[in-house]
Every structure is written in C-alpha cells, then in structure tokens.
C-alpha cells in the first residue's frame, strides 16, 4: 500500500458508518462491522486492488452467552497477492441470528457457513443449500451453543 495505510484505516475511511469496533491482538487486526453492511465491506475487501483479500480461510461462530448481541460470526481473510491476513467479525442477537451469506463472494463459504449453522445455529440468508453438514440431518439443536447440555438433552446428569 502506497501510503502505508492499514486495512483498518482504509475501512474506517471508506465505511465510517459500518465499522463498529476495531482492535488488535498479537499483531493481528480485526474489525466488527454491522451485519447490514457486511456484504459491501467484504466485497470491497476482496475487490479493492490494494487489499485483494481473495481467499476466505474460514467462517466460524462464537457464543458470548449471556451477552447481547449474543453471537459473533468471524470471517478470516487472506490475500494471495500481499500474503496478509485480516479478520472481519459481525454481531447478531439471539432473537434473530441471521447473517447475509458471503457465498456470492467466496464460494468456499458454502460449507463453512453450513458448519456454523449446524453447530451454532446461525442462519445465513441467501445461502444456496443451508442444511446440516456434520450432525445427522434429524438432529435437534445446535451443540456448540453455550446453553446446550454437554452430554446431550437426553441425559440429565
């Protein structure tokens, strides 16, 4: 990047309304964006020549029970041009845990979003085939949620 701007600064400049929070952990920076702006932020990160985050490493969900908004969906990006990594998060509440799907930007999001749906119960709007991927198709509940009993609902102790 010519002006040595960080990715975070670029995003804050371009999307002042969308970026809710920024941070850094061990040299890895991340942003929290509003889920309404998730798709445009992500497509900017992918298509902007200076950034070119053309590879989605993974999608995952985090349950921050009892905080509200309860869930975070995390997108880890990688640029095969600059070999940089970047993390985008978005927050959803427990009443309506829906996030727009990024499968239109990165095809690899398909199975990652299915896994996040399966285990965490996050619904991805406009996903081409949102069904369980790891658990049996008739499973009830989402086991990686903090309020799911570890030994399963059929065993109490």
């Amino acid at each position, binding site marked *: 990047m010519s002006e040595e701007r960080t990715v975070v600064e670029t995003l804050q400049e371009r999307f002042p309304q969308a970026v809710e929070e920024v941070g850094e952990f061990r040299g890895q920076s991340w942003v929290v964006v509003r889920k309404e702006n998730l798709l445009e932020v992500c497509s900017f990160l992918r298509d902007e020549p200076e950034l070119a985050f053309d590879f989605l490493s993974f999608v995952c969900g985090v349950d921050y029970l009892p905080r509200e908004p309860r869930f975070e969906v995390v997108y880890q990006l990688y640029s095969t041009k600059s070999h940089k990594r970047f993390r985008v998060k978005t927050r959803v509440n427990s009443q309506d845990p829906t996030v727009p799907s990024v499968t239109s930007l990165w095809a690899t999001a398909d199975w990652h979003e299915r896994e996040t749906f399966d285990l965490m119960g996050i619904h991805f709007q406009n996903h081409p085939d949102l069904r369980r991927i*790891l*658990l*049996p198709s008739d499973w009830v509940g989402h*086991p990686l949620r903090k309020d*799911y009993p*570890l*030994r*399963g609902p059929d065993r109490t102790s």
Partner: protein
Amino acid sequence: MGVKGKGDGSVLLTQLEWLVNWSRKSSMWPLGFGLACCALEMIATAGGSRFDIARFGMEVFRPSPRQADLMIVAGTVSKKMLPAVLRLYEQMADPKWVIAMGACASTGGVFDTYAVVQGIDQYLPVDVYIPGCPPRPEALLHGILRLHEMVQKGIARGASLRG
C-alpha cells in the same frame, strides 16, 4: 470325532454340537471395518505377519457383512455412525458375535458427550469386551481367543437382535 458307539441319541447330539462349535470357532471370519484408532490396532492384528491372526483361522476379514461372523466394533461409535453399524450387524448372517474393542466401544470412553454412543452394548449383544485405549494387538487376540473358548463351550451361541 467319535460320533458312534455311545448307544443313546443324546450323546450323538452333544458331540455334533461340539463339532459345530469347533468349526464355527475355527473359522470365525471378522467383518473388516473400523471406526477410530482401535481400527489401526485391529489392522495390525489382522494384516501383519507380526501378530498374524491367521494362526486362528481368522485371516479372512470380509468386506461384506453377509460373509462375516464376527463384528469387531473397533473405536468410537458416534450417534451419526450408529445406524450404519446397526445396519451392518443386521446384514450379517446368524450365528454372529460382537466384540467391543477398546474403551469407546465398551463405554464411550473419554467421549462423555452429546455426540457419542456410551457403549455399543446399548444396541448390540456384546460377547467380549476388550479394555484399552486402544488395546494392543495382544489384547485383541486374547479377547478373540476368549470368544473362541466361549463358542467352543457353547456359552456364546451367537445372538442376534431378533433374540
């Protein structure tokens, strides 16, 4: 085999049963499938010259349940895998036997979670439990020999889900 000369029919019947049991235990063909790390010990037991399960007439691990007599449940049975395991068992011809190999197949092992069956004996009639995590090939061989002994003595008659 000494099937003649005893006079009354009951002795003949007993000896025929002994003969049948002997032939069953002497060529007990296992079903070749594994579920977790126990499967590797089972493969070492079966496939290698080092432990050489062929000594006991068992080298023929069948890829089809229809030709198998013994199901070695080798590893962690997840709830998702359970229907497949039960279906394989149901497709085996009678008489058939089950060995629960290792801590997971016997009790669920360390996986005391929502996703894992807490012992295959909740669903299948297990004849022999083999402890270990995973059991060494010697332990598996010991369990198999114990099962042979039970079959020869008529203790393990080869139960099925139909009872």
